[in-house]
């Protein structure tokens, strides 16, 4: 090939050589740097400066590494939850709690008689198909077992029946096997023993029939940070076979239910934790599931966020069976009608809350001394302990709780003991036993299984499931 006549490099050639290379290489570098120094950009690794140096000094590969490895799809500073917990920026006084939070419109004195978000949820859910009146249980497990390598038993012989239409609380200390159970029931893990059905569909199948009947919210829901809220719901709706107008309508309804209508066009990477949780509920509801599995749906939320989520859950009664794992017992008492308590992979007890309280709650007396009495709590507790009728005595910074075997004997005996201890009481009452009392008692009594093959390691808990 003869290039002898063309040995000099003329300006046109230089332009031909340099312009595209400069455009591509320098352009890519500056684009990467621009992207990096976006105010809310989050990067993997320690610092933006480190990535800036890599982009600037590592020829070509630097910007590439940044786009492929360093750039986090989600943004750093989460956008504040300006939805105020519900659609249209309005806060609301939930039906779950009695504390009424007036709407923004009300605060501003606008006098707008807009329907409350709670009403909107109820209105939308009323148009959704109700659960069929059937005797078929929503969830049934028979000897469901999950063992891991090394003999670790995460779930042992779980026999459970969850009635259709119930809001079912699945309780247990950390590591009890709650999440394992949920993963088995939703098909994310495979049982090593036993069987189960959800909405009449056997678990462990691959036909998608189970997925079409359930919704699932992970305990720490994470989504694609680059997606917008509406896009995620669209995608999940399409996976469930929704298209066109039906999809648009369903996504709109779900956004309204979870109070994200105004944030639907924002990137999920900028959502706050509460918004992500609500989006998680939304994606789980998009197919109008017969059974909704929620893994610790409120554990990471602030009180307002908890109230929002619990409001949705309570409104789903009659529309879906809700199976929620949690260790926040107050929430369970608020919304659930049945509970099961799991400990060390074993089912301890299961039934309606009222029945459990009747059966397992010990009568309890609360004694609250007047302030400014040093040692009063200890003296009261000491006076009660050792009495034949006192099953247990617990103290708090302000009061003494005395669990008794027979209130007919204990009632008349307590006050003379208080008088003898020389403590002045501010309050004395027979308290209503709580689910927490029942839970703590049953978990403590159940303890680890007798001669377990291997106990499930539970970080932060002692051998009896207590912190």
């Amino acid at each position, binding site marked *: *090939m*003869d*290039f002898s006549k063309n*040995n000099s*490099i003329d300006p046109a*050639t230089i332009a*031909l*050589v340099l312009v*595209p*290379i400069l455009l*591509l*290489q320098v*352009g*890519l570098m500056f*684009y990467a740097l621009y*992207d990096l120094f976006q105010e809310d950009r989050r990067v993997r690794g320690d610092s933006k400066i480190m990535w800036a140096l890599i982009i600037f000094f590592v020829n*070509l*590969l630097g*910007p*590439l*590494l940044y*786009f*492929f*490895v360093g*750039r986090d*799809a989600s943004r750093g500073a989460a956008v504040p939850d300006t939805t105020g917990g519900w659609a249209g920026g309005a806060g609301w006084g939930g039906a779950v709690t009695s504390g009424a939070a007036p709407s923004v419109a009300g605060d501003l004195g606008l006098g707008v008689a807009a329907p409350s978000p709670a009403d909107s949820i109820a209105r939308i859910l009323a148009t959704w198909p109700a659960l069929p009146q059937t005797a078929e249980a929503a969830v049934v497990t028979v000897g469901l077992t999950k063992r891991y390598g090394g003999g670790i038993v995460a779930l042992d012989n779980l026999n459970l029946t969850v009635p259709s239409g119930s809001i079912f609380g699945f309780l247990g200390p950390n590591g009890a096997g709650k999440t394992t159970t949920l*993963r088995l029931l*939703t*098909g*994310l*893990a*495979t049982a090593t023993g036993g069987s189960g059905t959800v909405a009449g569909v056997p678990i462990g199948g*691959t036909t*998608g029939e189970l*997925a*079409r009947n*359930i919704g*699932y919210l*992970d305990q*720490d*829901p*994470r*989504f*694609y940070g*680059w*997606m917008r809220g509406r896009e995620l719901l669209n*995608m*999940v709706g*399409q*996976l*469930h*076979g929704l298209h066109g107008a039906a999809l648009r309508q369903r996504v709109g309804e779900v956004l309204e239910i979870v109070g994200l209508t105004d944030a639907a066009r924002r990137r999920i990477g900028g959502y706050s934790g509460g918004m992500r949780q609500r989006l998680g509920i939304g*994606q789980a509801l998009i*197919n109008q599931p017969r059974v909704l599995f929620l893994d610790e749906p409120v554990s990471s939320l602030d009180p307002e966020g908890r109230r929002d989520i619990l409001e949705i859950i309570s409104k789903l009664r009659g529309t879906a069976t809700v199976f929620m794992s949690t260790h926040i017992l107050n929430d369970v008492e608020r919304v659930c009608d049945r509970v099961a308590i799991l400990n060390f992979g074993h089912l301890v007890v299961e039934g309606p809350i009222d029945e459990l309280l009747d059966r397992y709650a010990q009568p309890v007396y609360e004694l609250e001394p007047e302030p400014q009495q040093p040692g009063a709590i200890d003296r009261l507790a000491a006076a009660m302990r050792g009495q034949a009728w006192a099953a247990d005595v617990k103290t708090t910074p302000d009061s003494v709780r005395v669990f008794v075997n027979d209130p007919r004997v204990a009632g008349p005996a307590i006050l003379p003991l208080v008088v003898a201890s020389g403590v002045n009481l501010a309050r004395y009452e027979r308290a209503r036993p709580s689910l927490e009392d029942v839970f703590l008692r049953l978990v403590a009594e159940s303890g680890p299984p007798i001669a377990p093959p291997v106990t499930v390691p539970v970080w932060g808990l002692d051998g009896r499931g207590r912190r």
Partner: protein
Amino acid sequence: MMGFRVLLVKELREQLRTNRFIAVIAVFVLFGIVGPLTDRYMKELIDAIGTQSGGFAIQIPGPSLDGAATQILKNLSQFGIICALLLAMGSVAWEKDRGTAGMILTKPASRAAFLAAKLVAISVTLGVAMALGTGCGYVYTLLLYPSVFPLGGYVAMALLMWWMLVAFTAITLLGSTLTRSAIAAAGIGLVALVVFGILGALPVIGPYMPSSLGDPALKLMLGQDAGWILGPVLFNLALVPALFGVTWLVFRRQEL
């Protein structure tokens, strides 16, 4: 495959939104251009430097179509493999680690569709980038050299190189499925690259390795007889579905 279409759209949109698509195309175009440029002007640049400094002379072969072809092929395959590893390394591992895989797979979407959408989306990105990169290489060769590669052979080279990258993508996808770490997945891809390189030097099985597709690709590009390539091509065509099958078997019962 249940949910494949929806998941493929999601994967392609992710490539676009995260700028990976643009970045890969930029790399391929850059090296498509740099290949013929390097060969065409390297000797002149070295000669000029040598003359100006009055120092030693470095013997650089003059520009030729062979040299341009080698440069294009070398650049695109080397950086193409890096791009394939970077695209595939976190594709499954990050989704498992973040929990998004669990979210998707509790919907009516099969695990095969989940994996296939990723493999196809990455292959599409690499295919578009390869088309643009080799297209730019062809145009620059046309501008800088008095003759140009035969178009049919050039297209065949681009297809072979693309399929080689798809094979490395499939290997890295397998690595990404085996582990929850993207770095480990990339390591598996790199180990495969080394192993294929070593096996490629062996007499009987050597020509069948993905990394050995470069030799016939170069000959096809230059319009020369590439010899018997049907066997290696068919083997590599079958390798990708086979690797995908193994990946699916691993992922099918994996706990998420």
